[in-house]
C-alpha cells in the first residue's frame, strides 16, 4: 500500500495528478521541486525501499522516447522504447531495474501527451520505415493501469499510425480496459513468461503464470494480438521438460492467429549492473549460478545458453513461421 506520494510542484494541479491523489486514501502528500530530490539518491537502498515504495508524480522533460539496444526487436526496421514509469510494482529477482537505480520508489510521468507527440515526430521523420515502440522497459506496462490510465490514453492514438506498432510488455492481469475497447490491430500485448515453478521462485508479487495465461486467452478471444516473451530463459534441473510443458499449454490454448510474435533470450546482465544486483541479493541462488562471459555481460555459460536457445528455436520452428520468432541477443537486456 502506497502511504507516501511525492508530487513535483510544477504538476501539483495537473488534473491527472489530482485524480491519482484521490485514489490513495490516507496517504501523505509531500511536495518536491524535482523528482531527483527523492529518487535515486546514492544513500538510498533499493532492497529496503522495495519493502514499502512511495509514488512520485513527476513531469518528464526530455528523452521521452529512446532507441532500443541492438538486438532488441520484433521485426520492425527501427525500434524505440519508452516508459511512463520508472520501477515496477513487481519484484522479479532477474530484473535489471534492481541494479539500475538505488531507489525502488515508483516515478510516474504524467505528461502523457508529450510521449504521443514524440511518437508522432518519429513516425513523421521515418515515413518509409516500419517503427516499433516498446512500452514497459523501465516498468511493467499495465500493472498500475487502473491508477495511471496510461495505456488507455495511448492505445487509441495508434489507430492512426499504420506504419508503426506498439508493444505493451507486462506480467499483469489488469486488462479490463483492453477488454472494454475494440482491439487496435497494430498494438501488441506481450506477456513475459516462464514455467510456473521458476516463476514462483523468482517473480515476486506477480500474477501466477496460470493467471497470465488466462489473461492472454481472454485478450486473444477479444481480438488483441499477443506477444509471448520468454526472456530471460531460466536454467535449472528439468528445465527442458518444464519449458516444453509451458509451450504445450500456451500453444494449445491460444489460437495461432492471435500470436503476433515470440521472442526468447537467455538470462544476462551488463557486468556493472550484475555487480549491483548481486550485492543487493547475495543469497539469491539464481545470481550465484551466472558468471561473467566474453562480452561485457554476465550470464549462463555459453554451452548452457546455446542449449537453451537451440531448444527454444526448435520448439518454435515446429509450429511457427520463422518470421515471427525472434532471439534477443546479448546486447539487449530486457526487464
Amino acid at each position, binding site marked *: 500500500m502506497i502511504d*507516501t506520494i511525492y508530487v513535483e510542484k510544477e504538476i501539483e494541479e495537473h488534473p491527472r495528478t489530482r485524480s491519482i491523489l484521490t485514489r490513495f486514501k490516507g496517504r501523505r502528500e509531500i511536495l518536491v521541486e524535482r523528482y531527483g530530490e*527523492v529518487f535515486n539518491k546514492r544513500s538510498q537502498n533499493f532492497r529496503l*525501499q522495495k519493502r514499502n515504495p512511495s509514488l512520485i508524480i513527476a513531469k518528464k522533460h526530455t528523452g521521452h522516447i529512446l532507441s532500443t539496444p541492438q538486438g532488441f526487436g520484433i521485426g520492425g526496421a527501427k525500434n524505440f522504447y519508452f516508459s511512463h514509469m520508472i520501477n515496477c510494482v513487481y519484484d522479479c529477482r532477474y530484473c535489471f531495474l534492481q541494479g539500475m537505480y538505488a531507489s525502488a520508489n515508483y516515478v510516474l510521468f504524467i505528461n502523457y501527451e508529450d510521449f504521443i507527440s514524440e511518437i508522432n515526430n518519429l513516425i513523421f521523420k521515418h515515413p518509409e520505415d516500419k517503427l516499433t515502440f516498446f512500452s514497459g522497459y523501465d516498468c511493467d506496462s499495465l500493472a498500475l493501469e487502473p491508477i495511471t490510465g496510461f495505456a488507455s490514453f495511448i492505445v487509441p492514438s495508434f489507430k492512426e499510425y499504420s506504419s508503426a506498432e506498439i508493444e505493451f510488455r507486462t506480467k499483469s492481469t489488469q486488462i479490463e480496459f483492453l477488454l472494454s475497447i475494440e482491439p487496435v490491430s497494430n498494438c501488441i500485448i506481450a506477456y513475459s513468461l516462464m514455467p510456473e515453478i521458476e516463476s514462483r521462485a523468482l517473480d515476486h508479487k506477480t500474477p501466477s503464470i496460470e493467471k497470465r495465461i488466462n489473461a492472454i486467452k481472454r485478450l486473444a478471444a477479444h481480438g488483441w494480438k499477443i506477444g509471448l516473451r520468454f526472456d530471460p530463459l531460466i536454467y535449472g534441473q528439468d528445465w527442458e521438460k518444464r519449458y516444453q510443458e509451458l509451450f504445450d499449454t500456451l500453444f494449445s490454448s491460444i489460437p495461432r492467429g492471435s500470436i503476433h510474435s515470440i521472442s526468447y533470450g537467455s538470462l544476462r546482465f551488463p557486468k556493472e549492473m550484475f555487480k549491483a544486483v548481486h550485492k543487493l541479493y547475495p*543469497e*539469491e541462488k539464481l545470481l550465484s*549460478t551466472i558468471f561473467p562471459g566474453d562480452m561485457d555481460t554476465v550470464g549462463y555459460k555459453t554451452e548452457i545458453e546455446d542449449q537453451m536457445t537451440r531448444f527454444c528455436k526448435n520448439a518454435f520452428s515446429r509450429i511457427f513461421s520463422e518470421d515471427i520468432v525472434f532471439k534477443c541477443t546479448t546486447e539487449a537486456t530486457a526487464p
Partner: protein
Amino acid sequence: MNDYPAIRWVVALKPEARIIRKNFNMSSSTQNSPYPLFKNASGQHWLTISGVGRINAAAATIYLYQISKAPPWTIWINVGIAGSGGSPIGSLYLIDKITDFSTQLSVFPKPALSVSIPRSSLLTLDAPGENYSRDQLFDMEGYSFFEIASKLSCQQLILVLKIVSDGPDIDFRSIMSKNVSELVARHIEVLSNVVDDLASVSKIEYDRLHIPDAYNSIVTKYHFTETQKHQLKKLIIRWRALFPERKPVDEIVNTNNASMALKALRAGIDSYKIKWDKK
C-alpha cells in the same frame, strides 16, 4: 554477533538523553571526549549528546560514527524536542521532510519502518525562532544529522523523531530540563518499538554486508594474495547462497594451498544445478 544490531543515538540535550540512556541501559563510555558518550554493555547501543545547533549535530554524528566503529547496517536515530505552531505539546512525529532554513535545501527521510507514527515536515533553523507555523516543526539539528547520517548508513535506516515542546503559547526559553525528560519518557515505549522494528530491517543489511565467518577461517589457513582474497570472498558468498548447509571450510580439506582451495570451491559452484521446486 555483537555488531548486530547497531543503534546510534544522537540527541542535542542532556534531558533528552537521560530517559533513552536509562531505557537502553547505557552508561558513560569515556571521560575525555569532545561530546559526552554513552553505550550499553554489549556495545550495540551508543548515544552522544551533541549540544544545540547544526554544526554540533554534524560533528557529533561523525564523532559517534568513528568512535563506535558503526558498521554500514547501523540504525541512526535523532530524537529531540521541536517547536510547532499547531501541534499539541508532547506530540511525537516522524519527520519525512527536512528543510535547511539557510539554504532552503530539503532532504526526505523515509525509514523502512512498519510502526505507525504521525508524520511531519521539519525546518532546521540556525537560531531559535518564534515564528511558529502550523504545517511544520522547528529544530536546530535535524537537517545536519540526516545529511551526515546518510553518508554513513542507508537512508532507510535513519530516523528523525521530534517531540513538540514549545509553540506560540509556550516559550522555548521557559522549557525546563525536567519537562524535556518527561516528554521523552512519554514516548519511550514507541522508541523501543521503533528500535525493534528497524533492527529486523537492519538484519537484512547485516546478512548482506558482513564478511562471512567462513572467509576468516579459510583466509588464515593458507597464504592468499590480495586478488585471491577478493576471489575467495566472492566464492564464499556464492557458496553460502547455493549450499547453506555445507561449510566451505569442509570442502577444502584435501587442498594444500590457496589456489587449490579456490579451485575446489569454484568446482562445487560450477557443477551446481538449481532445483527450482526445492527452492
